């Protein structure tokens, strides 16, 4: 039995976790390849134009897997362990996936407001005829694969080159096709880029007292704002926020990120990406932005 995992959107929330979990249960894993033009074209063709670019890319990955495996795994992520919500688009993904793909969709609702993560995994395992013990072992093995945050940050932040923090969702930061190789482009311009998720989490109590932003009910809202106030304590030359075109949540979040960054007199650049984004326009903005750093 082979389980297909679309290498897009929620995959990047916990890379390696799901593939090691399912292979721990004895399944073959088929990951869709790195995003390419073909995948984007498929996604754009099937997705309603009102979807954000990242969702369109996800549908491309989904359909690339369609017919190549026995199941395609599309979890319904509702709330995380802090009881904060994921993006509302994630809620409907398994339903839309069922409409689009012929291959059966393997799904379960992860809503930690109502049910512990481990319990939901057990329910998922039951669908695959796996018992509690097998689930527990696979989970423990998979958790070891989770990357440790903050390790590289202190090394990077000491670099002599100007440092730019890239703020976005992991599915934009880690997908080089989607972000048009932003990291490489910045490196060529003499910059050391640091991804927002590399920034260590601040001490919780301090973060809760912050009055510069509201209490977000989105998990990424809280994380990005907390990490933003954290990296601003260091020597940072500039901040670039990347957003998928038509991301509704980002239009709200961006206002607060920009306000906090600019209040610290750190240059800020906001970039929108979609399937039409040209390399030339992006390059011009990056070059001009770097000229504004002093």
């Amino acid at each position, binding site marked *: 039995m082979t389980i297909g995992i679309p290498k897009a959107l929620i995959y990047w929330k916990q890379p390696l976790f799901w593939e090691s979990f399912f292979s721990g249960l004895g399944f073959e894993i088929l990951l869709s390849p790195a995003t390419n*033009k073909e995948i984007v074209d498929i996604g754009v063709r099937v997705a309603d134009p009102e979807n954000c670019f990242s969702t369109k890319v996800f549908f491309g990955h989904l359909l690339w897997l369609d017919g190549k495996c026995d199941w395609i795994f599309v979890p319904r992520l509702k709330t995380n362990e802090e009881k904060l919500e994921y993006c509302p688009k994630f809620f409907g993904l398994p339903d839309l996936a069922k409409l689009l793909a012929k291959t059966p969709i393997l799904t379960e609702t992860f809503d930690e407001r109502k049910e512990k993560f481990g319990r939901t995994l057990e329910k998922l395992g039951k669908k695959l005829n796996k018992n509690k013990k097998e689930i527990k072992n696979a989970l423990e093995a998979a958790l070891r694969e989770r990357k440790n945050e903050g390790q590289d940050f202190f090394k990077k932040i000491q670099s002599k080159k100007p440092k730019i923090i890239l703020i976005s969702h992991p599915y934009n930061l880690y997908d080089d096709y989607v972000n048009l190789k932003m990291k490489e482009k910045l490196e060529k311009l003499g910059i050391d880029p640091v991804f927002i998720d590399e920034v260590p989490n601040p001490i919780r109590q301090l973060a809760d007292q912050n009055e510069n932003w509201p209490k977000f009910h989105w998990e990424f809202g809280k994380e990005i704002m907390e990490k933003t106030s954290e990296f601003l304590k260091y020597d940072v030359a500039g901040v670039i926020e990347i957003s998928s075109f038509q991301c509704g949540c980002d239009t709200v979040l961006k206002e607060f990120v920009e306000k906090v960054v600019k209040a610290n007199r750190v240059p800020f650049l906001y970039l929108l990406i979609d399937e039409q984004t040209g390399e030339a326009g992006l390059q011009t903005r990056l070059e001009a932005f770097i000229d504004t750093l002093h």
Partner: protein
Amino acid sequence: MKTYLGIDVGSISTNLVLIDEKNQVLSSLYLRTEGNPIDAIQRGLKELKKQMPREAEIAGVATTGSARYLAGVITGADLVKNEITAHAKGASFFVPEARTVIEIGGQDSKIIILENGVAVDFAMNLICAAGTGSFLDAQAFRLKLPVEQFGELALKSKNPTNIGSRCTVFAESDMIHKQQIGHTTEDIVAGLCQGLARNFLNNVARGKNIKPPIVFQGGVSENLGMRKAFEKALKEKIIVPPHNTVIGAFGVALLVKEQNPQKIKFLGFEISDKNIKCTSFQCQGCPNRCEVIEARIENKVVARWGDRCGKWSNLNVNN
């Protein structure tokens, strides 16, 4: 006499400015790109050669604009600079205390915030060209007016009508409707200018702290109706600097002069007579199927670009 050449190749116009060591403009050219940037550069160089003083020698070349890399390759530029930095440089030369620069060109519009003559923040139009010169061009064509007369006509209006300027397509339907219910052409033209200014301020300049002195430049700054529309919307004086339509080329000429290149890469005025061609092919290396562009001078490949992975652009093109 040492001179420095700035070339700004944009979607609508190709501009060349030659300055001397005292920053005096010796010649300036504004040509229509007409969809053929190579030809525009070649025409420009030929014309410049005729205009420039006999004793002038080129001591540095810089390119800017959306075709700056192409222009840099075929002329042998010492400096290739983005148009935002180039425009900021040009504006702060003429108006050293400027705090805001509004630049509207053919397909780009930008706002630049300056502090002590240096750009500290900027924004460009993102996904729509509704606030640019192309928009005005298109509307002028629909009204059968030369775009050059557009601005003067707008000034005659006593009661500018409200035109939705969010999108060129919908602006047309709105305009037709206004004509049908009896608005005069000057009121419609003035309305379009106000709509464009509003669109620029609400979209491109949104969230930017617009402080005087405000400089307005780029091709659209020639339009008197647009100047008035910005003055009205911002309730501030609008300064249009000298050489406003070619100021990007001027700015980049200043930048290369400051850089003072020791070894000049300029390929000479002869390039206007050479056979320069760009061809493209689709790379079959992966599903991305990138369109790779090859630039050739006299059939010799001088540069390649357009590939996402760098496999073609990194190739040593001299081989």
